[in-house]
């Protein structure tokens, strides 16, 4: 998908303008245009039917040995020239505080185009069709009334067009299309206790790269009566007993577990201290590379920007590096970071090509791509059958992890007690907690590719000012031995 001629011309003009400054050693100019649609039906009525467009330019450059960044929504040559001047002025001012110049490794530019493969353009589907696809399952969730107190169904679509031109000769255009559809039911018992059930996963985890074909594949209507029944059943369920049990994570919860305890701590900017002001640091330090046992021998985690349908899939990252797949944890050993060109160079390594900005007016930074757990063998039901005494957790309800990504506690909407290889009862308000490496070292089973699903998390927050990024995780179910569990 080629960028519009006007955007290309203005990016070229900005690039030329920046290169006129003798102290400018590197320039990246970006244009980004985003089209979006959000639809929600709640309790039988529309609850936000919106569409949006946002577009603009940005420049990131090195002048006088320091970084500068500026942006503008205005699509004119004077505006992009002003943007460049501001970035140069910022870099020069910042250089006064710097002890050493930025070390940004040079490389040959890349040229090309990339588009998300899709079957049905979601922006071409009539609104009436979309609303019907939400209203039918939402009504089914509410069928019969109490104790179902509230229900909602939603869908969202985004198309991002972007162009990157750099002083190294990079000229890459991309069109990324993604979306998702989901629903939730809230049941409130006569004692005032509340339970929520969501589908297909926890709200915000339903994102997939592709077109409107996602809706039929997700199958809200087919699942609605089961989701309603589970919400009601949970009201009468016993609380999860306190203790130490074997834990099986379903695919959706495994995605969240990977996100929080592998994705974030393997971000090299966090490890080097660049993200303290919002997100925190990381327990995975450079001296641990190739040495630290992160997980058991069956645990291999990858940074993958080529997986079909993943929200972390692209042609090139925002520093112009092509998509790739590389291990972060291999056979349980921590072997690499999610990195940028500058941070990787600081360790004498190659970037893993994971830099993205969430919009035209934000600086690009290290973000998760598709950070995935490699599948092994077997189905979830076989894994349950092989578990004598455990709890199957799925569909996240609450999440919390410390600033080094060590101490985590997650609670889930669904928790099935497993006895002698069978699911015997639902438990409510269930949580499990642990320390990241010890938890992953206790992993003794990972299901096969037939059970692995890519979950797209729409709102991964990082950066300051906060950036909201769409990322994904390929997640087969797996089992962890002797984990602390309980109820909230």
């Amino acid at each position: 998908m080629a960028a519009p001629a006007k955007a290309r011309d203005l990016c070229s003009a900005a690039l030329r303008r920046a290169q006129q400054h003798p102290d400018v050693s590197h320039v990246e100019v970006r244009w980004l245009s985003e089209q979006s649609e959000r639809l929600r039906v709640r309790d039988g009525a529309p609850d936000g039917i919106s569409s949006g467009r946002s577009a603009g330019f940005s420049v990131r450059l090195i002048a006088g040995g320091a970084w500068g960044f500026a942006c503008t929504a205005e699509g004119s040559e004077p505006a992009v020239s002003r943007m460049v001047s501001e970035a140069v002025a910022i870099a020069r001012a910042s250089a006064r505080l710097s002890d050493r110049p930025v070390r940004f490794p040079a490389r040959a530019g890349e040229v090309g185009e990339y588009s998300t493969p899709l079957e049905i353009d979601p922006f071409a589907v009539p609104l009436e069709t979309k609303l019907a696809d939400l209203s039918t399952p939402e009504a089914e969730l509410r069928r019969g009334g109490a104790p179902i107190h509230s229900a909602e169904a939603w869908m969202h679509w985004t198309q991002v067009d972007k162009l990157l031109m750099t002083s190294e000769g990079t000229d890459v255009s991309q069109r990324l299309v993604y979306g998702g559809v989901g629903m939730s039911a809230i049941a409130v018992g006569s004692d005032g206790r509340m339970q929520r059930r969501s589908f297909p996963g926890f709200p915000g985890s339903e994102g997939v790269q592709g077109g409107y074909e996602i809706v039929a594949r997700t199958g809200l209507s087919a699942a609605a009566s089961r989701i309603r029944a589970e919400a009601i059943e949970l009201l009468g369920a016993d609380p999860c007993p306190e203790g130490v049990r074997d834990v099986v994570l379903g695919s959706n919860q495994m995605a969240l577990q990977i996100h929080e305890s592998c994705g974030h701590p393997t971000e090299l900017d966090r490890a080097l201290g660049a993200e303290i002001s919002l997100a925190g640091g990381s327990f995975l330090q450079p001296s641990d590379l190739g040495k630290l046992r992160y997980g058991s021998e069956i645990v291999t985690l990858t940074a993958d920007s080529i997986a079909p349908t993943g929200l972390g899939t692209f042609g090139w990252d925002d520093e112009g590096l092509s998509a790739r797949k590389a291990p972060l944890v291999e056979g349980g050993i921590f072997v690499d970071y999610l990195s940028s060109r500058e941070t990787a160079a600081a360790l004498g390594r190659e970037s893993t090509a994971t830099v993205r900005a969430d919009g035209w007016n934000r600086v690009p930074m290290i973000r998760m791509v598709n950070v995935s757990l490699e599948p092994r063998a077997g189905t979830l039901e076989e894994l349950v059958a092989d578990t004598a005494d455990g709890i199957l957790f799925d569909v996240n309800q609450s999440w919390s992890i410390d600033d080094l990504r060590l101490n985590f506690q997650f609670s889930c909407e669904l928790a099935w007690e497993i006895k002698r290889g069978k699911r015997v009862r639902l438990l409510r308000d269930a949580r499990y907690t642990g320390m990241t490496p010890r938890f992953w070292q206790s992993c003794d089973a990972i299901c096969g590719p037939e059970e692995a699903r890519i979950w797209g998390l729409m709102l991964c927050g990082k950066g300051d000012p906060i950036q909201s990024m769409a990322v994904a995780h390929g997640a087969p179910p797996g089992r962890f031995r002797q984990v602390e569990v309980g109820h909230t």
Partner: protein
Amino acid sequence: MKGAELASMLNAALGAAGEPEAEVFATFARRGFARFAVSELGQHMQLEEPSVVVRVARDRRVAEASCSELSEHAIADAIRSAARTAPSVPRDEGFPGFARADEPEPPPMARHSARTAAATAEERVELLSPVFSRIRAAGLLATGVLDTTSRVEAVATSHGLTRSHESTLATFKVWALESAGGSGAAGHGMAAHVDLGSLDLEAQTEQAVVDALRGKNAGSLPAGRYDTVLGALALAELVEWLAMIGLGARELEQGLSPLAGRLGQRITADSFDVMEDPLGPHAFAAPFDREGVARRQVPLIRGGIAQGVVHDRATAARAGITSTGNAAAPSAFGGSGPSPSSLVVRGGSAASLDELIGGVDRGLYVRRLHYVNGYLEPRRAVMTGLTRDGTFLIEGGKVTKPIESMRFTDSLLEALERADGMTHSLTVAPNWWSAGGSVAAPAVRIRGLNFSSGSRQK
């Protein structure tokens, strides 16, 4: 851009589009944002944040469209786009219409500083230079942000309502770190003010350095209940979560809120008051919400009794009351329901943090919290989170030694029942997810706060 200029643009766009029932809300922010880490100014940015959100109603069928271009032409196009969509949207029988010209005027609020608005990259570097020097001199690493933001916002409706407001906010956050990456001791300082000149960078930096130095060689404690003094920023974060799960009308309607079915009843300690107070000295919000309704004081919990929640025009109409002026601006992280903008927790009688610490024989002082989550059991306001940037053991009424990060899991409302002291003075914390949003809170002493896991180990 001036507020009147933006408002005039919105009205011109409404006139050009000619929709009889339409509303336009627009903001434009320019932010000089100097983000530094490990004593390097690696992300120094000039940011523009334009946003236009329009809503059009036809026969109670409401559609919304947004764009990033601030021009009469682009805004009129967005109105026409929403108008094309509206007929396909199901009727919203509860739609109250957009605000009319006779909507009460918001009180005047002077929340603009010429100095903040005019701050340059050179000035930010000038201000940060002694911060870097002080932290380096202590053998520590400097990390943080100096943000100088100027913002203009305006609302106009096809019924003749027009509002505009100009504001600034300067924010300084600083960490002094023993080592890069967050392991080791960390001290933190934070200040926010309309006027850049009123930020005391030196005092906040000193606070960060002192806490980092006394935080070295932290010990560990087992899980258990500890008498705990939560610093003002820690309590502010818990109250922010309380607002998210329970102080808006949507959460009340859905039955998620701890106030649901309990309005007028005692839900926590009778010493606990929290109110929405956008008019007071602790707030940064605009005097009106995205619907143009004047913000006002709203008692939420008073004397431990649930008083009410905040509303927008739609939820207020369903409840048979008037909007409290809390329609939420669209946000990638926020829901679309009404939410408080400017929460204030009433302080107590303690003259200082040390007075609260002095009343603890053996317990913890926690300066800040990290990654709090309040979705465990929202009806009980059960929350979990970690301590951060200064956790200290208190023995015999004095801070004696640093402790590694610990996890608490407890019901906020039940924990406040066990509170027996709050500072009189409040600290204001701007939130990171909404423009102008803030919580002002005192430090609090809670008896027997439940720490569900002890210090961390790899």
